[in-house]
Each structure stands twice: as structure tokens, then as C-alpha cells.
């Protein structure tokens, strides 16, 4: 009879393939990045939680082996004959169809050239998306936030606690001190007896009575020794436990201002591109900061703070006064987002239209009120027309504040991500 064994391996854990999966991602980094770049254009803007499924053409993945080509004589057995009799002939379909339909399909021994699709999680997605990008002027301004995020910190020792918090060193040290303290008198007496005994040893005469005295002293010494030995090695009140307290945790936080022109000249397409730009920036900030607030400011002739829905979907007509939005942004910063506590990012999207006389005013507000508060100011102009006065006004600011102010032009949807990348590309080499 065989000896059979049944083993429960479920506890062994999964994830044996984790390493192999990483190896695969590493090897196909280039392709995955390309897929991610394509995916970002198709992705829903509000979707910040999910991962992404990545598609790589199979031909890039096949591992080559020696295998037969299409030529030559082929003979094979197939199942499920219904209507054929010997010596029937079947017309060979054209070559392109060869692999797909009819009996020809069976001739194609290799795998089809479908796409290879697999999933990556959100973190990996962001990793690929923002690979090689950096946030300029990233300063971690930390402050205590009012919410319930706390962390445990060690804080001294206490007398009561759970066994896992027991501090062995402290407890033993305490026990040692107690043993020394409680036995000090007895040890002193013992020392005295020892001294007396030594003195007796040095006397020569009267051996009998001396011996008696010695015995008594020895007995006393042993009584004391026993007493000391009976001291408990570890007592209940020796036990010391590590104390932990909750401390509200510090977190770095950022606020992102989205400023968009909603005047009649902004079509839905343009807004959609703006939205993608804002969304990318939001994701990127979210990766760098623990919490990110968003403030939406829409403006035509006057500016108003609004919610996301309104920001992207409501349409209003009117003239365009960009400075109104900038002014409002400044007010909000003063009121709610102190620049010593918040990392402030400002992103402005517009089609470049502005009331002629307003552009110098914008420039003035930015120079005097905003630029010193913000980490980064990004302006994107989404238009396929010529630049107008706002662009030229901003160009001057950019020259002056090259570190904090940047601007770019987005002509069409496919350019959104490349422009985003170009704005945040790691500046390699500071050898200016």
C-alpha cells in the first residue's frame, strides 16, 4: 500500500509569479509606456482609481523558435467530416484569408497575431505615465491637518501594558535595582560577619570556644545568604512597558487651481483638451502629495468659483477678461490657502482670447500677487489659430520667471500628453 500524503498549501502564499511579472514589465517598458500614452487619451477624466489594461502587439512578444514556413506539402487529419468524400477538392482561399477561415485555418500552426492584453494597477500606471517627469519647485510644506490621521509614537515607559509591549531591558534593569536596594542591609551585615570570621581566623588560642563562635557566625551568615536568595528575581512591579501615544500626522498638501475661460469662443473640444490637461496635472500632483485640493475657477467677463460639473459642462457667453480670474485666485489664496502651508499649483487654459486692454493687467497681477505664492504656474493655450496679445504678454513673464512660469501651445488632442510631458520633463544637467 502506498503511503499517500495530503498537504494544505494554501497558506504558502501566492505571488510566486511576482518576480517574473516584474521581469516582463521591465523588458517591455518601452512598449508599455507607449500603450500608457495612448491610453491616457481614451481614459475617462474622473477615473483616478483604476489601473489600465495594456495592449502590446503579439508580434513584439513572440519568442522565436525554428518553425516551418508556409511552403511545402502538408498532410493532416481533421475531425468532424460531414460532407466530404475522398478526392474532393477545396479551393484555396486567398492568402490573406488563409489563416482565418475554412480549412486553411488549420494550416496555420503558429499562434494568431492578436494583441496581447494584460492589466497593470493604478500605481504602475502612474509610474509609467509620469516616468521621468518631475514637479518643479517641489517643496514639502507640512502642516497639521485637522482630520483623523494619526500615527503611533513611542513615548517613555509605563507600569502597565500588554505583553508585546514589554520592555525586557527596562524590566530587568528595574529588577536588578530593586534586588540591590532590598538586600543592601543584609549584605552589609554579611560583610561584617565575614570580617569577624577573618579576625577570628587570625587568633591562635582557645580553639574550642573560637570554633563555637565561628559556627554561630557561619550560621548567621547563611541565614542572611538565604534571605538574600529568597528575594524574587523578577517582581510584578519590575515590569515596564513601552508607552505609545498617538500624534496627529503631518502631511504635505497641495492645492491646484484650474482656471479656464468659458466664454463663447471655447468649444467643447477645446474644453475637453483643457480637461485632459488639468486631469494629468491632478494625477501627477496626487502622486507626489498625500492630499490635493482642487479649486475650479471659470471666467468670462467675470470669474466665479464653481464645482467640477459646472466647470466643464456649463456654457456661458460673454466677453473675456482673464484678469478677473487671476484676481479671484489671489483672493482665494489669501483666504484659504496660505502659501506657507500649501503647495500651490496654478494651471490656466484658454484659447488665447482676451480683451485687448486686459492682458497687461493680467501680467501685472501675476508678477505682483501670484508668482511669489505659487510653486508653479502653467499656461496652456489651446488653439489652432495665431497667438494673440495674452500669449505675447505671458512670454515676457516666462522670460523673467523661467523657473516657476511656463507656457505651451496645444494644437490638438494628441498633443495634450506630449505638451504635459514637455512642461514637466526632468531638467537634466544644471550646468547653466
Amino acid at each position, binding site marked *: 500500500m502506498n*503511503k499517500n500524503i495530503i498537504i494544505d498549501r494554501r497558506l504558502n502564499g501566492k505571488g510566486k509569479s511576482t518576480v517574473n511579472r516584474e*521581469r516582463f514589465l521591465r523588458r517591455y517598458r518601452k512598449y508599455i509606456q507607449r500603450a500608457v500614452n495612448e491610453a491616457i487619451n481614451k481614459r475617462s477624466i474622473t477615473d483616478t482609481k483604476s489601473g489600465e489594461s495594456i495592449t502590446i502587439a503579439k508580434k513584439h512578444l513572440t519568442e522565436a*523558435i*525554428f518553425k516551418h514556413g508556409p511552403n*511545402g*506539402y502538408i498532410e493532416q487529419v481533421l475531425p468532424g467530416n460531414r460532407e466530404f468524400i475522398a478526392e474532393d477538392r477545396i479551393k484555396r482561399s486567398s492568402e490573406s484569408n488563409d489563416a482565418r477561415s475554412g480549412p486553411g485555418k488549420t494550416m496555420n500552426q503558429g499562434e494568431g497575431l492578436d494583441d*496581447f492584453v494584460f492589466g497593470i494597477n493604478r500605481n504602475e500606471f502612474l509610474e509609467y505615465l509620469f516616468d521621468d517627469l518631475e514637479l518643479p519647485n517641489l517643496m514639502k510644506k507640512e502642516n497639521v491637518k485637522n482630520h483623523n490621521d494619526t500615527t503611533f509614537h513611542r513615548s517613555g515607559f509605563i507600569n502597565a501594558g500588554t505583553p508585546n509591549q514589554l520592555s525586557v531591558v527596562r524590566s530587568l534593569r528595574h529588577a536588578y535595582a530593586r534586588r540591590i536596594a532590598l538586600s543592601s542591609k543584609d549584605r552589609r551585615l554579611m560583610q561584617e560577619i565575614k570580617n569577624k570570621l577573618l579576625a577570628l581566623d587570625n587568633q591562635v588560642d582557645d580553639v574550642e570556644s573560637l570554633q563555637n563562635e565561628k559556627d554561630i557566625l557561619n550560621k548567621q551568615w547563611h541565614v542572611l545568604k538565604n534571605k538574600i536568595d529568597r528575594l524574587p528575581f523578577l517582581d510584578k512591579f519590575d515590569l515596564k512597558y513601552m508607552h505609545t501615544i498617538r500624534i496627529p500626522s503631518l502631511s504635505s498638501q497641495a492645492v491646484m487651481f484650474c482656471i479656464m475661460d468659458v466664454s463663447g469662443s471655447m468649444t467643447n473640444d477645446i474644453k475637453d483638451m483643457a480637461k485632459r490637461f488639468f486631469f494629468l496635472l491632478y494625477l501627477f500632483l496626487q502622486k507626489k502629495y498625500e492630499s490635493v485640493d482642487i479649486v475650479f475657477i471659470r471666467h468670462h467677463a467675470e470669474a466665479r468659483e464653481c464645482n467640477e460639473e459646472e466647470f466643464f459642462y456649463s456654457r456661458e457667453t460673454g466677453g473675456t477678461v482673464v484678469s478677473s480670474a487671476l484676481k479671484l485666485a489671489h483672493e482665494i489664496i489669501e483666504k484659504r490657502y496660505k502659501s506657507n502651508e500649501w503647495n500651490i499649483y496654478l494651471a490656466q487654459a484658454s484659447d488665447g482670447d482676451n480683451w485687448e486692454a486686459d492682458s497687461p493687467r493680467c501680467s501685472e497681477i501675476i508678477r505682483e500677487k501670484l508668482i511669489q505664492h505659487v510653486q508653479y504656474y502653467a499656461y496652456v493655450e489651446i488653439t489652432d489659430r495665431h497667438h494673440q496679445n495674452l500669449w505675447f504678454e505671458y512670454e515676457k513673464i516666462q522670460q523673467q520667471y523661467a523657473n516657476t512660469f511656463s507656457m505651451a501651445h496645444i494644437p490638438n488632442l494628441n498633443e495634450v500628453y506630449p505638451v504635459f510631458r514637455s512642461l514637466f520633463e526632468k531638467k537634466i544637467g544644471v550646468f547653466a
Partner: protein
Amino acid sequence: MTYSISTAKKIKRKNSIAKKSSYLSEGSEWTFDLIETYNLEISYLAEQCKLDTYPNQIEIINSEQMLDAYSASGMPLMYNHWSFGKQFLAQKANYEKGYMGLAYEIVINSNPCIAYLMAENNMTMQALVIAHACYGHNSFFKGNYLFKEWTNADAIIDYLLFAKNYIAQCEERYGIDAVEEVLDACHALQAHAVNRYNRPEPLSSEQEACRFHEREAYIQKTLNDIWNTIPKKENKVVMPNPKFPVDPEENILYFIEKNAPALSIWKRELIRIVRKISQYFYPQKQTKVMNEGWATFWHYTLMNELYNNHKITESAMLYFFTIHTNVVHQPEYDSAIYQGMNPYALGFNIFKDLRRICENPTQEDKQWFPDIAASNWLTTLDYAMRHFNDESFIQQFLSPKVIRDMHLFVLTGDRQKPYYEINAIHNEIGYRTVRNVLANQHNLGNLEPNIQVYSVDMMGDRTLMLRHYMHCNRDLDTEDTARVLAHLKTLWSFDVALESVTPDNKIQKTYTTKTSV
């Protein structure tokens, strides 16, 4: 948790036979005790059927572990490589989308024979898998001549452990990229890393490690750079230009491992590892139909036997039939899900029909199989399992009835002609042709291109020349061939070329890594 079967249990089992009606279980939930009871019952039945097996080690795993396991060739230990990751991702995606169920079991040709059962399955399914893997496959591994002769069930797990550790060490020492380059190249040549005709020496991991250390130590000890500074004496005697190798070598990786002129020791060792593992899997490739057919036949037989002995309920039996029918389903050639011959179906049909021929032979059977018609079916099936591979098995045992039942027909095609032709169908004149072609179709020698190391340009630029001996005038896939040769070049370190040769020794096409000037 480890359960081993105690004698007390055996006594209990005998009692339950005496009662003759008690079901082993009624619900669909499984427990460890139930698995043990079923296993005991099935092993008893298997013993009655004279199945000789290795001891079983049944391991319960969950579905994610199952995914892990079979993206690494089903082995419990495997070295790391991106291609396993690719497989894992593909399978995971398919599984999550519901395109594919997980394999019901994985069984490893080792001693003890390790079988994985998935925790998500119900009791009936577990019983099926135990019958299929632990008694079907297991007895096949132990009995079939190819496995007996070519694989070493006692040593494989140890060897894989050695391989995994060794490769991990190499990655640490030489970097992941360097190791990957070698492994990629080896994997490309995996199918050409087996000896088809002479048995390779057995392996044992300790010997392997020991041998390796000795070799390394020896080289370290005898390494004396000073010798390299002494100019070599010019050999005045002009050697005749001998052909090297004298005979063509079919095992390309073996040839590289032994003869590549500039290959570091660790790279040779990696080649050796891939080669050894490839050789280990070679019998499985040669006996796909038989192995699966045998296991399927036995789960079918044993489950029916359990039912006949009133050990499992009718509802369990109905569930079993649903699963079994799916397993042995053979889609027709023009169906959307057709993916070639289903080895489970073909093998099962042949074995089942073999039993019928033994028990209820017809006139036709007596004519076709005079020596096995009306013989003892257990002995005949045992013989068929032990002494054949897919090709010879089909050649010997594919009966006209199976050909008729499966509606098999032969299709031939030549690139030169604008049509395919039906050569034979399932009728009196067609049986033999169908059988021959189907057998040939399972001859690995015909499926994979026959490529061998032909010569090395010893006096010139050391080009390694391979020869492709063409079969049925079939050529090679140009793109893949170029890529494999590029891989080969990284191992050989000099140029590599390949000639396709027709049977009358005419060179039809040459591929080379040399860039023409």
C-alpha cells in the same frame, strides 16, 4: 497540515464495504477528511485494476497559486524569467475575463508524485482529479517506457532547486540582463536541446553542484596568467582540414555547451540547465495523447466504479458527466473553437475502444486486431500504456470504429496547387491512410524542423553551420529563423549560418548572421 492514512481508516473502509450502500459524502463541500476517504476508496479501486503508482502527494492550492504554477511550466520550482511572467499575465487576463477556466489539476512526474488540487473545486471535482492525476497520470509516469528510460522522477525536484539557486546567483554576479540574454537564446533553441536516440546520463542535484564546484575550483587553481604571456609556437605542420563535428549533432545546445570557443563557465552551466529541463519534458511532448487519454480513461472508469459501488450520489455523477463531456469534447474542424486535435478526446476514445475490443469484439475488430480481440482488457491496456509513444500507439491501436465515430478525414495541401484535396475519409479504403497520417502527425520529428549542427569552419572564421533537412519540401519561417540565429550567435560568439537541404542534398536556401559586405 499533513494527513497520512492510518490503519484504523482501512478497517473503517472495509466495514463500509460490508454495508454496501453508504455514500462517501452527499454535499458538494470538500474537507480534508473527505479527500482522504475518497483517495482511499479510489486507491483501493485502482489497486483492483492493477494500477502501479508512485506514492501520491496531494497538495491543496488556491486558484491564484494555480495560475502561478502553470505559468512556470507547471513545476513547483522554476528559475525566474520574463517569459514566465508573460505567460502569467496572459493567463491571468484570460482567466479574469472568463475566456478560460483554470486547468483542473497539475501533476508532476516526480517521486512522490505531486498533484495539485484547487481549493475552489467541489468534492466531485476533487474526486475526479484524484482519479485522473494521482492514479491515471501517476501510473503512466511510472509505467511508460519513455518516462522510465528518459526521466528521473527521484531527482527532478532537487535539480530544479539547484537550477533556480544557480541562476539566481548568476543574476547577482553578472546582472539580470546578461543572464537573460543567455536564457533567451537557450529558450529559442529548447526544442533542439534533446537527444532523441541515446539516453543522457541521469542527473542528481548534489552531484551536479559538486561537479560544478570541482570544475570551477580546478580552473581557479590551474589558472596562471603568466602562461598566457608566452608566445605560442607556430605549428608548422599543416593539418588536413578535418570536418568538425565528424557526424552531425542533433542536440544543438549540447554542441554549443561543449564546443563554443569563447563562453564563460556560468553560461555553459545555464545552457546545461535549460538542456536538462528540456530533456525532462521531452517524453511528455511525445506522449500527450496517450498520457491524457490514459488519465481520462481512468478517471472515467474509476468514477463509474465509485458510482456502481454506491459511493457517490447520482447528482455527483451527473456533475461528473458534465465535466467529463467538456474534457473529451472534440470540436469539428470548421468550428470557431477548433484548435487542433484534442488529445484528451483522441486518447480517451482509443483507450475506451480498446477495452470494448477486448470485451465485446465485433467481426471487424477480430479482423483488425486478431491478437487483442477478446483478450483480458486490463492486461492489454497495461501493455498499450507501457510500450508506446503517441505515434506508435496510434499506429497500433486506432480502430476503424474510432475513426468513424470522430469522422476523421485526411486533408492534403501543396503550396503549389490552388486547392486542398481530401485524401481519405472514414471508410473502408480510407482507414489505413487516416491512421498513418494521424500517427505521423504525432511524430515530433515531423512536426519540428529537423535541424542539426553540420560543421564548423575551423580554419576560417569559425562560422557554425547548421543544416535543415527538409521534410515534405517544407521551408522555414524566415523571420523567426533569423531571430533564432541571432540568439545562437550570442552563444557561439561567431557567425552562424543555416542551410535548408532537400533530401537529394541540394541546398535550397541559406540563412546567415553574416552581414554581406
